[in-house]
């Protein structure tokens, strides 16, 4: 194999596929990146057996072939070569790899590409198309509440479902839940898959902030995110996701407030000043008339702050894990938000005042 390409292209490709290279040290070919040339393109692949990333770049190909190179070493080479020169990669039958850039010359050992596990093909029958920017925003707004508990593996992924002309993404970690809806006219109904959180964060990193499209193809056990020059395939989590609507739909909300998002976010942030290290104290809120008193108290000290709001319904005293609130306030952009409470023991729903795109449910902490 022999090709030549821009250093910046190669670096971008290597950095992308490295996100799907195992660093668990279990099986040497999985610590490698597969480089292949075909149809005038240079293709890099990484595969950690949970997900695979394939990145295609352009270059001059003199001789087709393929080789596996160690991900860390090859990554460092791509990173440290001078930006202004092109990089030439040449391999021989024994998988020795020569890398040249201007007056710099390196030789490393490669491996037989035979052993590299193939990234599975995903059937193109079921698909969804969405703007990269929108999709990125969707992931950002749910990724933080993806679970991380091995005893509840299905919650280590986010649910993606399409129905009634919208695409919904849902994540929950046992204490709180985020739901993001994006209306997509003409979307095919019936998508209902659970994508591992780790794959989604990688997709989020790869997505660009522009109106290029991402095509999503899915079948029973795999999903493909096709971003054009870059593709990510992930396995899907198997099993029934929770009937998530039941958590908030049957509730009776006795108190409803509308409040300035930044004010409450900053208030919670300040209340957290005295909650340090592994202290897990909750932050309490007293809602009375048109005011909320945010309070936290630990050995270090106390913080009290009053924030004005509009209230309908009953007065209330409630407490939360402050992180659960901060996370959601950070993830939405709206200026005013609506919070509905079902007593001091029931689920609490947080949503923007306008629109139906986002909904967050969090359970309180019972204090005595």
């Amino acid at each position, binding site marked *: 194999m022999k090709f030549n390409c821009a250093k910046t292209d190669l670096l971008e490709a290597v950095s992308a596929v490295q996100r799907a290279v195992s660093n668990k*040290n*279990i*099986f040497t070919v999985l610590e490698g990146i597969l480089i292949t040339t075909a149809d005038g393109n240079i293709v890099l692949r990484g*595969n950690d*057996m*949970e997900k695979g990333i394939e990145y295609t770049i352009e270059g001059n190909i003199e001789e087709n072939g393929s080789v596996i190179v160690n991900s860390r070493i090859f990554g460092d080479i791509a990173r440290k070569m001078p930006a202004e020169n092109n990089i030439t990669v040449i391999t021989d039958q024994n998988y020795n790899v020569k890398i040249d850039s201007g007056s710099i010359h390196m030789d490393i050992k490669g491996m037989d590409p035979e052993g590299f*596990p*193939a990234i*599975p093909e995903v059937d193109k029958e079921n698909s969804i198309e969405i703007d990269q920017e929108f999709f990125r925003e969707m992931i950002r707004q749910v990724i933080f509440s993806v679970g991380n*508990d*091995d*005893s*509840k*593996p*299905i*919650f280590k992924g986010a649910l993606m479902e399409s129905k009634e002309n919208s695409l919904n993404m849902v994540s*929950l970690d*046992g*204490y*709180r*839940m985020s739901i993001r809806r994006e209306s997509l006219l003409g979307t095919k109904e019936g998508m209902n898959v659970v994508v591992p959180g780790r794959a989604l964060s990688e997709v989020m990193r790869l997505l660009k902030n522009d109106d290029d499209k991402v095509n999503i193809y899915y079948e029973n*056990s*795999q999903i493909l995110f096709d971003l054009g020059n870059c593709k990510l395939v*992930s*396995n899907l*989590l*198997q*099993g*029934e*996701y*929770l*009937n998530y609507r039941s*958590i908030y739909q049957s509730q009776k909300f006795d108190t409803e407030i509308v409040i300035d998002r930044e004010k409450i976010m900053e208030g919670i942030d300040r209340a957290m000043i005295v909650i340090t*290290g*592994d202290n*897990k*104290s*909750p932050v309490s809120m007293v809602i009375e008339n048109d005011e909320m008193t945010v309070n936290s108290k630990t050995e270090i000290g106390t913080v009290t702050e009053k924030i004005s709001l509009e209230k309908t319904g009953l007065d209330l005293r409630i*407490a939360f*894990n402050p992180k659960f609130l901060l996370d959601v306030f950070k993830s939405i952009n709206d200026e005013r938000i609506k919070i509905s409470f079902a007593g001091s*023991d029931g*689920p609490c729903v947080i949503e923007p005042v306008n629109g139906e795109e986002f909904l967050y*449910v969090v*359970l*309180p*902490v*019972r*204090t*005595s």
Partner: protein
Amino acid sequence: MMMNRIVILDENTSNQIAAGEVIERPASIVKEMVENSIDAGACNISIEITKGGISLIRVSDDGSGIYADDVEMAFERHGTSKIRKADDLKTVATMGFRGEALPSIASVSRLEMDTRTQEAESGVKIKVTGGDIVSKVTSNRQPGTTITVRDLFYNVPARYKFLKNDQTETRYCTDIVTRIALAHPEISFTYSANKTEILRTPGDKSLQSAIYCAYGREIMSNLFPVDYRDSLCRITGYTGNRFAARGNRQNQTILVNGRYIKDATITKAVEKAYETEIMKGKFPFYVLNLEIDAGQVDVNVHPAKTEVRFQRGNEIFNSFYSAVRAAIDTSRGITPAEAGAAKIRRTEPAREEPVVVKSTFFDNETKKIERKPMPAEVHEALVNARRQFYDGAADVNSNFLEVSEEYKVVKETSGMGHIRVLENARIAGVLFNTFILLEYTDEEMLVIDQHAAHERITYEGLLKKRKERNMDSQKLMVPIRVRLDRKDAVLVEENRSMIEGLGFDFDLLGPDEAVIRALPVEIFGENVGEVFLGLVDSLEGSGKQDADIIEKEAIYQMACKNSVKANTALSDIEINALLSQLKGLENPYTCPHGRPVILTLTRRGLEKIFKRIV
């Protein structure tokens, strides 16, 4: 004043005294009666209790029955059909032999026996109240025996007073029935308490089935068989891997020729065999049966027959050690330890989500992957190093302060005041990411076990919080289901208010399953099911102690989960924070389980070690 003349006690009085030795509580009666049924060759035994056995115990069997003429004899002191002369004791193969149990039971309760032999035309029913036979009539019972014991200790208030509450007594009964069922897989046992069936074994001769019935499905994949023989004895049964290990010795059953006993030598031998296999503080699961010539073992050591004496105790130790070691070694070849299995051991996702995550991705290729475990030598060395430290220190602790001339364990009573001036000490370094070294004065250095210190800090913090109020409790969106042993379910219910005070909110879904709806914020991020089960273990382990101690133990369990694991590198700032926290503690000197937190070593001591001075 009455003269103190010597008299021979009347029979009833002497029976009551004997009862004091044999009959401690309902569970002892259950044991004696079930053993009688076994001796009678029964294939099916059913046991029923109400109110912890205090108001009723009924044992029915389809065994030999008793001849109508002998019925009264069964209630005579030393009336037995099992041995004839003292010599027979040496070879006794039945469970009973003393002829003491029935008269003892009868003397402290209202008893009714209905029995018929195979040959007899009809049965005979006899009522005995406080040891006196009050009636004897014919009955139409099928061959076999039913004995019903009511109102235990109705005539001995002093003993009645010592009974525990119903649930606790039920738990003791359940325990003994379970053990006997494990000892006799060839007999089908049915056991119910307050009309709820708690245990039913098939009697299909398979120990595996009996274990399954007693402990549930989960345990089965974590067991390996033991089958060992030497010139002295044979040892068979099952022993658990590290995922089956628990925080107490509750799940250890030793059987000697089919008799459930407790024996320190055997317990020690098995644990020795497990030494590097399971974590310190965890105890292996096992059911092991020793078959040995009856002449080699004396069962007549204690009236309750729960202890035995071996003629060749040392060899028994070696046999058990070898038997279990061999089983562990063999198992290693077949079942590779699966990381993660422990986590889902008995914690299942809530009902709403029947989930099994299978990686269907790249199916064919996954076969090629081989795990590289930590080399055995390295692992062993690590484990040993830590153990030696703890064991050494623990010994030291029991000898009180003066360990050796070289180093001392700093204790509360030592009045050395080290703690108050900790911040003046210079951090000299950290060893193995575990031990903090402080130069304290020109003449003295301190060694602090970082893990023990942190455990102590967390523990006292939690304790303090708990004293002030109930713990804060995070509600769960998706409840967590936890499998419990039936015994544990009772225990959990008994201690409900304590557990709720710690911040758990739970319900029992059935006799062996709990659902957790809220958890203490302190264990946030931990595996909730595991912490809950750890708490259950500590309840079990604390036994009869008072509520305060049980709660402290439970809080300690939570503290352990919450503490920095040993081997976490700490920065100087973190070390300083740890030291100033230590300073604020009530007792910074020992971790809640009594291991020392701080050692001191003097310059003189060091000089001695290096033989600069003598």
